């Protein structure tokens, strides 16, 4: 009973100490906040690119080409203008490229030799390649409207097969776009545009003779912002739990409270449990309003039956963080160093866990390192619980994290007790 009271008392005391230390709170909150802001801005910069479109021809072929380019609003942020203005926009970096449908487009198209000019400010390959791919796709769709994507249901057996069998809807943005472009509804839009007439080709015409059949592994499509932003919750829990516990443990040495704690008439293990409980509660205290805001903003919207697994996931992440923080707080000396080291360790665990990248793109040696990072399982589990209808891989993720939490808590506790006795 006295041990339980001691655990509760130390947890309460540590939580109060943490809440009364704005410096510690700032240390824990600022990096995840910065990361969230970074990802939000990043989401704005991926996707469509500002491109000027200059239409110098007005025949049916040119109109069709123009319509195709205008319709691809996922790739381009089009500014339709004349050639001198487009050149000025390119020079002042208001657009990244100029697409020109030249005056002789129709005449040459009849002879199968029309040219679509692309003038590109190829500063880096990321956005330059995006534009190149998109313009070539548009040129391809001119002759082959169906050139694009044909999602076929019932692809290779996957972990969301069951949900798919239940008839959930595919979203297939590309397919929808291609279909819209080629479909008969074009004529209605043409009338609205007051175009005299549009050269059109049958939707199934494909002079390239290559048809793409796309099979999606997952039912859900997650946009870039949500996909990247959600893992910041892992960084938040990790940073608060780790920095909070580490600073409290480091404080024992600095304030001399370690000597008093070791003389207390309760088990040292009970006191360590209290300390880690304090770190865990601090994480929960910050997490609850954050998740609440996410739910209110519609960013966090898991299926109703995923809330319990989600809660379990957050708790084991917080436990891992508390254990790691305890170990770090005893190894290093000085609050400043402890705060910095905690922040760096949390950042590495987050990065190598796929928090800022897509694991598949990493070289094999980095993927192997990533497999050893418990936060990879935390991020995978979180995405699965929030974005996908089934939790097929979730038990494995939770098991790995629980194992890690047990090891880190025991290790951290042993190190804290040892440091008190020194």
């Amino acid at each position, binding site marked *: 009973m006295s041990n339980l009271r001691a655990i509760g008392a130390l947890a309460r005391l540590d939580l109060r100490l943490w809440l009364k230390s704005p410096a510690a709170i700032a240390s824990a909150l600022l990096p995840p906040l910065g990361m969230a802001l970074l990802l939000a*801005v990043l989401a704005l910069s991926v996707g469509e690119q500002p491109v000027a479109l200059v239409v110098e021809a007005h025949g049916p072929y040119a109109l069709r080409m123009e319509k195709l380019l205008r319709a691809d609003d996922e790739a381009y942020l089009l500014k339709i203008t004349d050639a001198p203005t487009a050149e000025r926009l390119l020079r002042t970096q208001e657009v990244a490229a100029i697409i020109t449908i030249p005056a002789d487009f129709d005449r040459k198209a009849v002879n199968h030799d029309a040219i679509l000019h692309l003038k590109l400010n190829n500063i880096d*390959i990321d956005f330059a390649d*995006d534009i190149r791919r998109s313009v070539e796709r548009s040129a391809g769709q001119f002759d082959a409207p169906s050139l694009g994507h044909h999602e076929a249901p019932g692809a290779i057996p996957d972990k969301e097969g069951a949900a798919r069998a239940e008839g959930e809807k595919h979203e297939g943005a590309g397919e929808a776009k291609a279909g819209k472009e080629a479909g008969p509804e074009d004529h209605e839009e043409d009338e609205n545009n007051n175009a005299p007439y549009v050269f059109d080709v049958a939707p199934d015409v494909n002079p390239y003779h290559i*048809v793409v059949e796309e099979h999606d592994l997952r039912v859900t499509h997650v946009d870039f912002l949500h996909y990247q932003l959600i893992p910041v919750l892992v960084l938040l829990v990790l940073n608060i739990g780790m920095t909070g516990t580490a600073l409290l443990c480091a404080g024992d040495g600095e304030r001399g409270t370690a000597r008093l704690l070791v003389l207390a008439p309760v088990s040292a293990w009970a006191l360590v449990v209290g300390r880690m409980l304090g770190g865990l509660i601090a994480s929960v205290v910050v997490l609850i309003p954050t998740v609440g805001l996410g739910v209110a903003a519609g960013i966090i919207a898991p299926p109703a039956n995923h809330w319990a697994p989600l809660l379990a996931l957050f708790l084991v992440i917080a436990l891992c963080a508390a254990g790691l923080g305890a170990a770090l707080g005893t190894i290093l000396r000085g609050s400043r160093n402890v705060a910095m080291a905690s922040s760096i360790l949390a950042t590495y665990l987050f990065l190598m866990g796929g928090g800022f990248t897509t694991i598949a793109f990493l070289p094999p040696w980095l993927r192997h390192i990533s497999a050893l990072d418990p936060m990879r399982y935390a991020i995978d589990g979180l995405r699965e619980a929030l974005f996908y209808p089934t939790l097929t891989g979730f038990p494995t993720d939770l098991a790995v994290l629980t194992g890690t939490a047990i090891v880190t808590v025991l290790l951290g506790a042993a190190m804290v007790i040892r440091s008190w006795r020194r």
Partner: protein
Amino acid sequence: MRRSDLQAVVGGFQAEILQLRRSPLFVFLTIVQAITFLLLVSLFGLTGSSAPVALICKDTGPYARTFISTLESTHHSFDLKEMDLASATAALHRGDLVGILTIPEDFSQSVLFGKDVTIRIDIDNVNTDMTDDVQRGLPSAIVRFGQQLHLPDLHVRVVEQDLIPHDTGYIAYLVVSGLVLNAFVIAGILSATAIAREFESGTIKLLSLAPTSAFFPLAGRAAATTVFAGGALLLPLAIVVFGYRIVPVHPMAAVGALMLCTALFSCLGIVLGALLKRTVPVASLIVGMSLPLYLCSGALEPERYDGEKLWILGHLSPVYHAVGVVQMAFHGLKVTPESTSVNILALACWLVAMLALAAWLLRRRTP
């Protein structure tokens, strides 16, 4: 400035150098923090191109080979790995691949005789950005393939004119911008900590008893951290030059720009240190600030491509102009509508303004 003031500046300088020599862990962590930033942007850069896709080619004919080489050369779209279906499916589910591309047995025959042939792509559509890249890359490769073969019935081809004679890799672009943030992290943390420490430990009260203003020893400390940060920045610079093999087009301009940034961010650190008066949150605040600053500065692509609002917002930060200067110095790229001389002038103005603000703040906050 009196002789005693100068002595106080030199004394502060020497004391700070001694302090830094006695805090190797802190200095080490500061540099690691900066290098972490290079790793962060490199990891992000890896996702920008060459999606890892398994290739299952059931056709040994010449057109299949041509198509595969077209896929490989299409705008860094795919990193193709020949695999069998079982291992490819396992890798796709493990998250090691973005997709599986299957070319059927009759591919070459169909192309030869002008018959339609279906290629299958299984995509791990884990996020729409990644899926979009594949969905654009495949048609692009098909169009290039068709033009290589001079297929009949094609009406349009794309003719590209690049403003720059060579392409710059995404990671190469990102890490150069990252160097500016390295200067921000190293110089900012060191100088902010040096100033905040004086307030936190109460030394500032003792300095008030000195026969000169406390401003001068603090200025000496700040000068020491600036010099030290300039030296420390050579390590990330060496990593970029020798590790990433990015040799600056204008080496002297590159070093000069980074040193100018170091001085500027040191002044910013002094301001932060004098405002915070605590050392613990310094590193977190600077790292937390550096991330959004990085993105609003044209670090990923010219800032104006992200829209007018972000571009205007970018001008509120010296990082915007600094990225413009270092991209020109390293890659010869013009990433801001402003000329390089305007960017240098803007940085110099920022330096003077921050120096004045730091001096004013120190004078106000010291006895």
